[in-house]
Each structure stands twice: as C-alpha cells, then as structure tokens.
C-alpha cells in the first residue's frame, strides 16, 4: 500500500529589512547550498556530491526520506534534503561506520539525515548572519514515505537543486518567503 504524506509550511515570522541584496536572495541562498552540500558530504562522509540536474525522485515509486531545517529571522525559509531511503541508509552506514545490519531500523538513518540537513543549512545560516541577515535555525525534522509533496501555506519562492553522488542522485529543495 502506498503511503501519502503532505507537509505544509507556514511562514509566520515578521519580515524585516536586511543589508544584503534582496532581489536575488533566493539565488544567493541557492548558491550557498551549492557549496555547503559538497562540503558536508566531503567532510563528514568522504563522498563527492556534484551539482547535477534535479532528479524526479517522487515519481520513482521508491520510499523517500526528506530532512528539513528552517531558518527564521531577517530571512525566512526552509530547506529539504530529499533522498531515496536506500541512499539515506547507505549514507547513515558510511557516516557512522556501521554495516546495514548494525543500523537500528530507521531511527539511526533519520537521525543522520537530520544532522546532515542541519550541517548544510547551518553553513548557509552562518553566511547569512555574516552578511547582515541574522536568523536562527529550527530543529531538524525528517519525513519518510512515498508520494509526499512539500507545499507552502503562503506565497513562497522555490528552487530545486540536484546533486549526484556516485550512482545516486538527490535533491535539495529551497523554499523562501519572498523579499520585498
């Protein structure tokens, strides 16, 4: 039986002025993600993640895992790291130095994906803060299932960034409250 889940985002924080260029802010954050994703994969997993076309994971029928971390403050948004469950499990084993049999169910895999998401968005957050756009991170969340979609409750801008890691592909989805 296919499971469906939907994730609804709400942006309720006050939007304030910032000193960094707002017009292309989502593209600037996208660029930051394009550098932080490979950095985290290289440092924590000794794996090379290369920017690639965004994969269509959600039509594959495979079970997917999505780690999410938001940033709230002068700039507001959320980043989702979408991977197949099989790739997420492989990453967890690599990061923890455990065999597939040693991984305890999905709990450890979810924790690893949450932490990887946290590191990726943490690097972005730090650069935003240093650029004069202070914000804080939310606690990482992990969603697991098939055919789930991320939907924003309000108007938001969206960017999809694809990556290739060996034979596997994964997706980084960025949703941001538009700047005015």
């Amino acid at each position, binding site marked *: 039986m296919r499971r469906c889940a939907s994730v609804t985002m709400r942006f309720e924080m006050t939007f304030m002025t910032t000193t960094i260029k707002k017009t292309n802010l989502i593209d600037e954050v996208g660029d930051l993600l394009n550098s932080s994703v490979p*950095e*985290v994969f290289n*440092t*924590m997993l000794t794996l090379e993640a290369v920017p690639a076309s965004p994969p269509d994971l959600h039509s594959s029928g495979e079970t997917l895992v999505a780690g999410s971390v938001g940033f709230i403050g002068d700039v507001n948004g959320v980043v989702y790291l979408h991977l197949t469950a099989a790739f997420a499990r492989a990453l*967890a084993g690599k*990061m*923890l*130095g455990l065999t597939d049999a040693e991984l305890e169910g999905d709990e*450890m895999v979810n*924790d*690893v994906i*949450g*932490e990887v998401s*946290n*590191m990726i*968005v*943490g*690097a972005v*957050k*730090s*650069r*935003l*803060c*240093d650029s004069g756009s*202070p914000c*804080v*991170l939310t*606690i990482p969340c992990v969603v697991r299932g098939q055919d789930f979609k991320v939907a924003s409750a309000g108007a938001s801008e969206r960017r999809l960034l694809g990556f290739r890691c060996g034979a596997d592909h994964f997706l980084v989805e960025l949703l941001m409250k538009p700047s005015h």
Partner: protein
Amino acid sequence: MSKKILTVDDSKTIRMIIQRAFRAHDCSLCEAANGEEGLAVAAREKPDLIILDITMPVMDGITMLTKLRQDPELKATPVIMLSAESGQANVATISQLGISDYLVKPFKEEQLLEKAGKVIALQLKPAA
C-alpha cells in the same frame, strides 16, 4: 589517569561520531541529549571536558553553558562548543561566556581530537 568527557548533543549521530573519535584514547565518555540532562550528568560525573552543541530542545547549549559557569563546582570545567552555526556574531557572543574552543560542523574527527588534546591530556590506550 583516564579522562572523562561529556558530550551534550541532541543528535545521536554526533554522539556516536564523538565516541568513535576517542575510541583509541584512554578516556571514558558519557552523554546527554540536551542542556538540562547535560547539567545533571556534569554534576554527577564531574567531567574533565564537555563537548557542547548549541541548538538543542529543552535547554540549548548557551543556557547550559551560562548555568555551568554559575555553578561553583562546575564553573571551571573546560567546554568545547560544537555547532553547525559559525556566524561571527554567534561565536563572539559564546566566547564571552568562557569556552576553551569552538568547532564548526561539519568537522573531521582529527580536528576534534586536536582541539580536545589542547584542553586535556589525551593518551592512547595501552596496547592489549
């Protein structure tokens, strides 16, 4: 003499990576998943070093560090902050609370060992 290290991080992943980083060294590790638990474990175990995350549920690392520095028995305990947040203002604020060092995630185990080795005398476990 074996050193005692307390890891306070809500991520089991990070706690396991830290455990693995020190496995070749003559030290014992204890852990806590948030600042509140961390204060309780610190009071009980009197660690030689605390490796402390910032963003955690229940009680974050900055609150725990503040309370630690107010505790007469624990205020001198060295703390290395380990966080995904490396903003200049963030680091400056935390530095004022009295930390021995700051390590940004993502990190390599060697970086952690190097920083810990500057705070406590780390020795390799004797060969079996």
